[in-house]
């Protein structure tokens, strides 16, 4: 799961079009929650052990409790300042090392993309590093023993596929509606195992991650220039509608 800032809270500086990211609250991405919810449903049906895995800043501790309260059994978080500014390749490498440290697994569930950048690379890269199968864009999942049947959403078609564990599955938001963690579980969550690892624990050289070794250089990151007219009509509806239609005619938008 990836921790992101609350995107609804982002303000844009008018003069520079820069986003203001300081002081925002943090949460797990929407589709990451879909992935966790699906894991909890599999556990309720078949029995399973769920480990939440995340790499990020020390603020991860703030959100990981929610994931535990939703039904995960334990959490492993990789918290290391050196990871700051990592590209997806480095993040996937760290996650893969953590998966290997955790040991055995049947399913790795991820969201189809993170809420902030939505690049969707982590699942693909993880599957490649671990040398396992990946099934993407899953909106329906059923499991029997080590056999996995999934319905994939591929734009204008639905595709039913069958494969075996272990594998990486990326889910879409249609697969389920994540539960809200009940209060009793939130209280209990802090007693569940929380493993905090550093890069050293995973045997990773700090020089291979982070901003300095990133293959991606961000030249600029600004709100798009919007040259909109911003003519807003208020008051009497009939008058407002007449004015609007008049304006649209002049724009040639009604021809």
């Amino acid at each position, binding site marked *: 799961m990836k921790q992101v800032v609350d*995107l609804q809270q982002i303000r844009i500086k008018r003069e520079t079009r820069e986003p203001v990211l300081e002081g925002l609250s943090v949460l797990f991405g929407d589709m990451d929650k879909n992935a966790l919810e699906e894991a909890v449903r599999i556990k309720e049906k078949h029995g399973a052990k769920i480990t939440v895995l995340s790499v990020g800043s020390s603020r991860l501790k703030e959100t990981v409790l929610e994931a535990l309260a939703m039904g995960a059994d334990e959490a492993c978080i990789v918290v290391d300042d050196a990871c700051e500014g990592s590209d997806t390749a480095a993040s996937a490498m760290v996650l893969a090392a953590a998966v290997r440290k955790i040991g055995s697994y049947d399913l790795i569930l991820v969201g189809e993309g993170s809420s902030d950048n939505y690049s969707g690379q982590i699942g693909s890269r993880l599957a490649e590093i671990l040398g396992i199968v990946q099934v993407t864009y899953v909106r329906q999942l059923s499991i029997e023993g080590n056999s996995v049947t999934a319905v994939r959403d591929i734009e204008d078609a639905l595709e039913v596929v069958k494969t075996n564990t272990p594998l990486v599955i990326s889910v879409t938001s249609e697969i389920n509606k994540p539960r809200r963690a009940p209060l009793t579980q939130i209280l209990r969550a802090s007693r569940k195992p929380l493993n905090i690892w550093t890069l050293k624990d995973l045997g990773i050289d700090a020089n291979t991650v982070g901003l300095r070794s990133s293959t991606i250089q961000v030249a*600029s990151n600004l709100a798009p220039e*919007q040259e909109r007219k911003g003519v807003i009509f208020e008051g009497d509806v009939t008058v407002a509608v007449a004015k609007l239609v008049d304006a649209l005619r002049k724009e040639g938008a009604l021809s």
Partner: protein
Amino acid sequence: MTSGILVSSESDSGLRELLTKGRELSNALNVELSALVIGKTDDKDIQSYFDYGAQKVLMITSISPEMLDAETYTFTLSEVARDAADILLITSTRMGKEVAGRVAQRLQAGCITDAIGLTTKGGDLIIDRYALGGNTISSEIIKARKKVISIMPKAFEANPSPTTNGKVETIDIKPPMRRVEIIERKKKLGESVSIESAETLVCVGKGISKKEDIEIINELCSTLKAELGCTRALSSDFHWISEDRMVGISGKRCKPRLHVSIGISGQIQHSVGIMSSKLIVAINRDKEAPIFKISDYGIVGDLYQVVPKLNERIKAIGT
């Protein structure tokens, strides 16, 4: 110095868009532009790739394009791009996006998905994509020698730019055994929807309070000859409108001449899908709704009053 640009797409229209952009980049960077074509052998098809700027067409005849799966596609692209290209451009369909990450991992490439802009500056490729949930556009440079970029469908227009003396090369690829079995592939139900190519689009959101009321929006659509779109809430959450009409970061992106937004607050996840509209008109009860900040025209008012009146008025003048 790069060894070349390779483009690949699941559709011919996608390939033409990438070739058009690829040709511009190949001229700027002075490298060769190749198109990877899976399973096509028709001379007319091949000629059309040259017409849109390919200098070389790499034909894979050993793989059928029907039931192409991500593993086969990943394998094919990786094998070809390993020697043939430093820059790989793929259409960012769901398949293309998955494959981009996998090929990048195999080739130790830097990768950017869902690109919406691609330019060159002093030998560098500048790649634009939405970031922070659509709040910003991030302009990025891939520093790795190998670059894999998946580009949003319709981000670029296709324009012919014929190549003479283009070369065709057939490559023999033997993909590994499939590990994922495709049981079936069925078209989604519902009429064909063309949100992306609609000239006029009317989008509706949570301002509508029950499913039956969508009828008043449909009436406006019929007057304007518009396609109907909606927010995530109305499709994924309420199931009032089919998902293929969802507009936004996890749905479709539109670029109509006229976009009418009704009862939509304008949260970024939705509005990122409408940014390319030429003219945006918003109707919303809340004067402070963010949608008005990205609108050309707007009416602050109850959609139940505004929409029928608007419909009448447009009907009266005739469109």
